[in-house]
């Protein structure tokens, strides 16, 4: 009887210890897991914050670059032409120009005013292409590729439209800017002889810009904030379209950038 009682007591003690140990293990697991998961969550948050910071930085840099470009065009093009025209007009008013040269100077001034008007139109077109408003995105992109095509690099445009969809003006402009930047990047950095722009319209809107240039190391470019500004800028703009962007590039094997977004 006593032996059975001892055995039962032993069973209770062992059973209690086992269940208690199990419950303790569960509690320690929760502490450990919670800490681990929160650590992971914080790391992810840090990566996201860094990414957002880089995006903001790239946006600011891109804006500054654009401002500098416009300022430079206004100063060197429009400003210089208007100064020369003013000088000519001043000389005509003062009578310092001989009568026989007067017609020539007036014609020269008129040419300079025409050139200024052209420069202003070009700047305006660069800021907001008129064809985009008048004929839509496809036509604007076609014009853009024609304009950017040169002797060294051939830029082609292809539209594959299986469904009839239209983008609102804001999204059209955003898409235009993305393609413009992608082609500019390819022309500036890739040494490519061919840049292809393919726009596919079906249930979603897809853009593929590919070149046969030098390509680049994607990871290294991302790590270098100065070099990676372009990538972040594209990602930033694509995110405004609620879309996704995919960069594929290998050194010496060209670059393909695919963008997709829903209507």
């Amino acid at each position, binding site marked *: 009887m006593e032996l059975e009682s001892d055995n039962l*007591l032993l069973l*209770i003690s062992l059973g*209690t210890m086992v269940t*208690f140990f199990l*419950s303790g293990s569960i509690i320690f697991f*929760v502490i450990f897991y*919670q800490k681990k*998961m929160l650590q992971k*969550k914080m790391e992810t948050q840090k990566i996201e914050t860094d990414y957002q910071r880089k995006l903001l930085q790239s946006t600011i840099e891109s804006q500054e670059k654009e401002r500098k470009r416009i300022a430079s065009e206004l100063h060197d093009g429009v400003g210089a032409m208007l100064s020369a025209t003013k000088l000519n007009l001043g000389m005509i008013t003062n009578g310092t120009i001989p009568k026989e040269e007067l017609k020539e100077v007036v014609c020269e001034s008129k040419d300079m005013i025409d050139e200024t008007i052209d420069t202003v139109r070009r700047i305006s077109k660069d800021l907001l292409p008129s064809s985009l408003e008048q004929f839509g995105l496809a036509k604007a992109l076609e014009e853009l590729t024609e304009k950017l095509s040169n002797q060294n690099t051939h830029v082609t445009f292809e539209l594959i439209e299986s469904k009839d969809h239209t983008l609102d003006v804001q999204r059209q402009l955003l898409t235009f800017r993305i393609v413009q930047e992608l082609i500019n990047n390819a022309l500036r950095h890739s040494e490519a002889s061919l840049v292809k722009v393919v726009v596919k319209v079906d249930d979603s809107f897809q853009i593929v810009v590919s070149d046969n240039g030098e390509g680049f190391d994607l990871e290294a470019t991302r790590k270098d904030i100065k070099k990676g500004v372009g990538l972040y800028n594209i990602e930033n703009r694509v995110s405004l379209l609620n879309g996704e962007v995919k960069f594929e590039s290998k050194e010496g094997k060209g670059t393909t950038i695919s963008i997709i977004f829903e209507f």
Partner: protein
Amino acid sequence: MGYYYYIILGVSLTTSFSAFFLGAKWNAYQGYLKYIFVLTLISSIADAINYFALWYYKITAQYFYQLHISFFYRLIEFLLLFEFFKWLVGINRRLVISIQVVAALYFLWCYPEVPYTGLQMIDSTPLRILNCLTFIFMSILALVHYLRKMEIENPIDDPLFFTISSVLMYFSGITFIAAFDWYLQEFDRNASYVSWSFQNLFVILRNVLFGIAFYKQSKQPNGIRV
């Protein structure tokens, strides 16, 4: 009966009251802690009555948990903890009603036996095991729920975590005692003191953890976290 039993029960009673006063001092009456606070208060009273019975009437240990007070304490403990977990986990309404009905039926089935069989004859083993398993399950469910929410950086700083852990450890610890104590008494009444000393050790642990939960709650800047 060994003097250690008095000591353990005395410590259990002290921790029970201490936890209660920790709660009372820092006014932890709101939110989920109100259930735990009331439970601690009732536990303190039940322990005090048991201690008095042990000392004054020289009642033997094996009858403690067959007393009316213990039986009612278990019912109140079940209701309070059930409300606590229901609030915490947001258990399915059907499951809540089912568990409540089963618990009520079981209690109604057990309790009327008392006048016929005598207090010491109630074998509440299945009820106690069911009680333990229910709260082990609910504690684990609450911990899973806790992990999903991922609101607290360090669980050790959270009173809610201490409360759930306390319930889990307490019921895990006493499950085997609840399951075999009745049979142990059949063989050797003195051996049951040992098992009940175990039970009181878990009560002490539970009270200490409740006390820590009350203390942690009092240190939280914005009061209750819901």
